[in-house]
């Protein structure tokens, strides 16, 4: 049996993460209303990346999971980023 004692995250942590996520959403909405050109895209995606790391680590409990699961998650995210990067590279410099 591999059912060890569960790791319980307190309600407070979840509420703090929620507050952070909502704040980040409002920041990204207000920042993108100002025209900053390509910087807008960069900021919007950077904030989205920060938000998703909070969701993955705390809400999805990844921070407290075993190494194998963490490794797999990072590998998948890297693959997606790599595919997007290579496709855009190919498209821009073909």
């Amino acid at each position, binding site marked *: 049996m591999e059912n060890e004692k569960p790791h319980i*995250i307190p309600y407070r942590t979840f509420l703090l993460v929620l507050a952070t996520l909502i704040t980040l959403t409002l920041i990204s*909405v207000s920042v*993108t209303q100002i025209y900053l050109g390509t910087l807008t895209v960069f900021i919007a995606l950077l904030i989205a990346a920060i938000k998703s790391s909070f969701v*993955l680590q705390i809400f999805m409990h990844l921070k407290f999971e075993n190494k194998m699961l963490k490794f797999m998650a990072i590998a998948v995210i890297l693959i997606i980023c790599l595919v997007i990067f290579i496709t855009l590279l190919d498209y821009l410099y073909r």
Partner: protein
Amino acid sequence: MDIHRDDLASKTGMWLFLFTEMLLFGGLFVVYSVYRFRNVQAFHLAADELDVFIGTVNTIILLISSCTIAMSITALQRNNKKLSLLLLSITVILGLMFLFNKYIEWGDHFREHIYPGSPVLALRGQGDVLFYGLYFFMTGLHALHIIVGLGFIGFIMIYIFRDRVTHDNFVLLENSGLYWHLVDLIWIFLFPLFYLIT
């Protein structure tokens, strides 16, 4: 009787499934980026037409629902069945609110004759057809995931009610939570891509 149970394997299986979901949407993001590069102006104007307010409200609704389902796991782990069920009910209500807002939003588009295959949209050019095609497909696929997630959570609520998911056997609740968070995760990227970056 000792029934074999392996929570770690159960959770790992769920994660493997979520990885395929991430790759599915990742592929769609690649399609979106390339088309955006090829139709900068059309995508810019079309994205400007989307209602940022309703998009922001929906984002916040989904974030809160993610928080409530995460808290319901803590509640169940602390053997507070009632609170866990209450938090799950809130999650379901928030999910339905999200779908209702989507219904309003899509309804407005349809009234303006903007839908896949619409002749009015075709007159506006290839860029608009591509933008709205991707918009309807990606937000639609996402909404489909919300519906599946709500069904999943509904089942788990029945299981908790009947004490088949309990404080010492909650991996199914965790898995439904993981699925719901993935839906939230995808929306975190869909929202800036369609609504904010104009």
